[in-house]
């Protein structure tokens, strides 16, 4: 089972103006920071709202979801003693808000699923996408991952000792996947293996690399900047390496307390 990666964009690479990317003011004004970040990354990846109908599956992944709106809703619940609760933070706080907003923007009622499995969320969504493409159920998948950090979570997790050796991170990354090589294809995913036992960098190379030139991106518990879907950003880094001329990249992800995953990406040949 393999698939081809088309355009891939992280939130740092979004160039266009938010109002241009999300022209519907009514949708835009209700979006929290993470929803704006993720939806604008998705639209930039597709090249505009008009392109949203061209995908036939929208898959999103998040470990933490829309934290700011969840916090707002829960605080309201306490301060208003479970009365007079604003509907907007509740509506916007669900994990599938981003997938839903992309669908609403593009009037696209296709298969739309959000995976929330801590640090496996991205890999689970990718597996779903690859299976749909392999089974012929989809021809063009939009796959994305996002997570946000908010001050209260950073404070709580700092007290828990999470950030002694790491930095609290956040980010979003979106890409298109197709079953066959297309004009915009830049790399192919040839293997997705998880969950596996913990491996050293050398063991990873021996088990998964098919060429001596293969490069390894090894993310373990010592990795510096963390959030649950960090592996999506590392996936983007692997694609950039392929675009720069590397023939194979082995991506090992063992962050944030779940069993490791391995992805193997190759050039188009």
């Amino acid at each position, binding site marked *: 089972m393999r698939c081809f990666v088309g355009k891939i964009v992280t939130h740092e690479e979004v160039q266009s103006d938010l109002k241009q990317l999300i022209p519907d*003011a009514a949708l835009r*004004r*209700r979006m929290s920071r993470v929803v704006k970040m993720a939806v604008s990354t998705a639209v930039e990846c597709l090249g505009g709202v008009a392109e949203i109908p061209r995908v036939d599956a929208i898959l999103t992944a998040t470990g933490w979801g829309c934290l700011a709106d969840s916090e707002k809703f829960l605080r309201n619940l306490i301060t208003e003693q479970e009365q*007079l609760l604003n*509907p907007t933070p509740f509506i916007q706080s669900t994990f599938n808000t981003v997938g839903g907003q992309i669908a609403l923007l593009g009037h696209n009622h296709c298969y739309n699923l959000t995976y929330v499995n801590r640090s496996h969320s991205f890999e689970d969504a990718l597996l779903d996408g690859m299976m749909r493409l392999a089974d012929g159920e989809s021809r063009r998948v939009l796959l994305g991952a996002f997570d946000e950090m908010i001050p209260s979570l950073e404070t709580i997790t700092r007290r828990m000792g999470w950030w002694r050796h790491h930095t609290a991170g956040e980010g979003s990354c979106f890409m298109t996947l197709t079953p066959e090589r297309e004009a915009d294809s830049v790399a192919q995913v040839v293997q997705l293996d998880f969950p596996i036992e913990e491996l050293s960098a050398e063991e990873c190379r021996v088990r998964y690399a098919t060429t001596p030139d293969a490069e390894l991106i090894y993310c373990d518990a010592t990795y510096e900047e963390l959030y649950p879907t960090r592996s999506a950003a590392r996936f983007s880094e692997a694609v950039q390496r392929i675009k720069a001329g590397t023939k194979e990249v082995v991506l090992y992800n063992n962050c944030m307390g779940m069993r490791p995953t391995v992805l193997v990406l190759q050039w188009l040949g």
Partner: protein
Amino acid sequence: MEQLILELKEHLIEELNLEDITPEEIDAEAPLFGDGLGLDSIDALEIILILEKNYGVRLANTAEAKPVFYSVKTLAEYVMQNRK
């Protein structure tokens, strides 16, 4: 009345996240829904909460909502008549 209208406009901007809009730009007599500010049913729920939280005003029955929610001015008149 003018002060109440200004206050209501500020609440609407804040609670409905009306980006890039100042109180002066909201016509107190223009429709809130449809053509005017383009608000929708979720905003209507938010406006109910604005009235209740800030002025203790509750809509007695939903049938009266349409004329009351027509504009900022009709909202202000309803608050004037019913505030606690």
